[in-house]
């Protein structure tokens, strides 16, 4: 079958096995994404990574005891040894002088080493050869069956119920554990719930993501979600959604190429979502910031054109004279292209008129030019009076402020300074445009 046929088969989900794989990876990705958020905000993501590695011996022991591969028993074993790892980290940091990073390194590598030893032993025995336990290292979503989906759905439902009923408490615990304890909240219990959530999250993620890359699915969807919102609830939902998308993508690719492990593909697609979020997120995104910077630069050019034309007409009180672009560019050190685009924008906004290749201010343009000039000079007065700066130190600061002072600040400045008529350089501060409006 070619890729197209496989794709159709995967997304039409007519095949029951495909349905289980998709449902399983959606559940896994969603749970990991949502609950990874708490670890992310508590800065415990790497503890999650250590716990994930610590689950491996549990998987091996469970298989040894059981003698066959049944997912829920293996996951139970994983959860128990994951919890043991979490307790070991806690014990090391509490009772020795070792710091958290050392404790994480020790627990992660010691448990993982032990796990590999057990898995290798199992592989050598007859029954273990086909056990597929090595799939737990990098994940294999294709192995998810009906039974597994049911187990995952039950676990997911329990976790969501706990989350909904304890949301407010878990939030304060994550934000300010000291205050939560001081207010009489049972912080021991809440921390137990959070750690259990972390253990369960990495345990259910094992089959799809695998032990080795678990940290990624705990951190990356949450970090991506954080770029889009300042609201914890929305962040949880987004992070779950990103986890689901990554899970399905991983499952899809390993469906196309069955010998590929799923985990790395889940992580790669989560990373793509993360990169997209960092670039394009509405508030924090890099692209948004660049656009804002560009807008600022444009506004500054426009303000400067209006200001120089206004000042040029100040002496004769005639603001409607026509100026050729060359003349304007000499009034201020504009770049040629920058000025050309700026003039075009000002014409289309109705602040300038174009006549025979020359430009002049419209009435709106005169008002705007007067305002920029006024803000500049008011700020100079403010600096001189309140910061007691000498007159030759004022211009540069005012040059920046004239673009960002809001009408509210303008009003406060005028009132505070008592509507001054002259700036520190004895130039007139124009107010006439205000009388008109």
């Amino acid at each position, binding site marked *: 079958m070619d890729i197209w046929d496989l794709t159709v088969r995967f997304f039409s989900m007519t095949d029951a096995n495909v349905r289980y794989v998709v449902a399983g990876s959606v559940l896994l990705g969603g749970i990991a994404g949502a609950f990874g958020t708490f670890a992310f905000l508590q800065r415990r993501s790497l503890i999650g990574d250590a716990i994930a590695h610590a689950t491996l011996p549990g998987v091996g022991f469970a298989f040894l005891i059981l003698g066959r591969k049944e997912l829920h028993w293996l996951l139970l074993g994983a959860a128990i040894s994951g919890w043991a790892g979490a307790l070991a980290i806690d014990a090391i940091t509490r009772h020795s002088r070792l710091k958290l990073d050392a404790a994480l390194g020790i627990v992660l590598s010691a448990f993982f080493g032990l796990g590999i030893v057990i898995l290798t032993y199992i592989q050598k025995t007859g029954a273990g050869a086909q056990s597929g336990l090595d799939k737990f290292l990098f994940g294999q979503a294709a192995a998810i069956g009906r039974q597994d989906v049911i187990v995952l759905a039950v676990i997911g439902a329990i976790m969501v119920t706990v989350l909904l009923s304890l949301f407010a408490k878990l939030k304060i615990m994550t934000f300010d554990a000291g205050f939560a304890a001081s207010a*009489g909240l049972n912080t021991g219990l809440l921390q137990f719930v959070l750690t259990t959530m972390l253990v369960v999250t990495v345990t259910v993620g094992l089959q799809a993501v695998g032990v080795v890359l678990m940290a990624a699915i705990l951190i990356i969807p949450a970090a991506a979600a954080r770029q889009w919102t*300042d*609201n914890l609830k929305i962040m949880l939902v987004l992070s779950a959604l990103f986890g689901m998308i990554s899970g399905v993508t991983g499952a899809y690719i390993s469906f196309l190429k069955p010998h590929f492990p799923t985990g790395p593909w889940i992580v790669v697609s989560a990373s793509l979502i993360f990169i997209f979020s960092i670039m394009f997120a509405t508030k924090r995104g890099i692209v948004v910031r660049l656009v804002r910077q560009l807008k600022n630069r444009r506004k500054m050019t426009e303000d400067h054109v209006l200001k120089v034309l206004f000042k040029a007409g100040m002496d004769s009180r005639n603001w409607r004279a026509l100026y050729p672009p060359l003349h304007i560019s000499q009034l201020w050190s504009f770049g040629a292209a920058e000025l050309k685009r700026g003039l075009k924008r000002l014409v289309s906004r109705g602040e300038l008129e174009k006549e025979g290749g020359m430009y002049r201010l419209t009435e709106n343009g005169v008002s705007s030019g007067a305002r920029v000039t006024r803000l500049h000079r008011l700020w100079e007065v403010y600096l001189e009076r309140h910061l007691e700066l000498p007159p030759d130190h004022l211009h540069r600061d005012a040059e920046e402020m004239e673009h960002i002072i809001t009408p509210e600040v303008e009003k406060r400045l005028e009132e505070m300074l008592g509507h001054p008529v002259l700036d520190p350089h004895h130039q007139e501060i124009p107010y006439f445009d205000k009388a008109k409006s």
Partner: protein
Amino acid sequence: MTDNRNNAAPIEVHDLTVAYRKKPVLWDIDFSLPEGQLIGMVGPNGAGKSTLIKAIMGLLPLSSGFIKIYGKPLEIQRELVGYVPQRESVDWDFPTDALDVVTMGRYGKLSLFGRPSKEDKEIAMDALEKVGLADFAKRQISQLSGGQQQRVFLARALAQDAVIYLMDEPFAGVDAATEKAIIELLGELKNKGKTLLVVHHDLNTVAEYFDWVMLLNLRLIKLGPVQEIFNNENLRTTYGGKLNLLSEMAEKIGKMP
């Protein structure tokens, strides 16, 4: 609430010793605070000021001694005590807004599965208004200035509606105007009969701000009305070298196998 308050002192600390990895950071602390006073706590860095606050709030294991709130153990009196931790103790990039943080002041009164009610939100909004941040209720907390963040913490304590307040450096990193606003607020609380214990760093303003002062350096040096005990001699004892032996011994105990 009145039945909980009897005639006992708001806070009684008896023979308290707190150790960190066996190294004592507070020795044999013993005092009772008077009711309805604004009490400043001063002492050099590492004197154990925050530790004492946390110990009273039950956030640290005690090596010895006990603490009573109006004559009863803290566990049954928690609702009477409000707490303002150091501003740096939390991550202000947490995804939430000012009103939400202040509402957390109400959580101590909720059951395990309870959620803040509409009334809780109103109380929180009132508290924000009292600290002059009503317009910032929906502002993401990372976008608040240091002084505003400090006031959010104060508002959260106000929302707790306590009778005793323990505050860990509420003036740290705030500008002069905010400091003035905060001290006025503390004065109002005092006038309502509340007892306030406030960690403070600026010795110049102790006499102006506080009724009583607690001088602390590993042990309690002095506690009393500012005009009686806030003098050079006691400050020398608090900040000076006389305690070297005590600190040395503390180091030694900490290093014992």
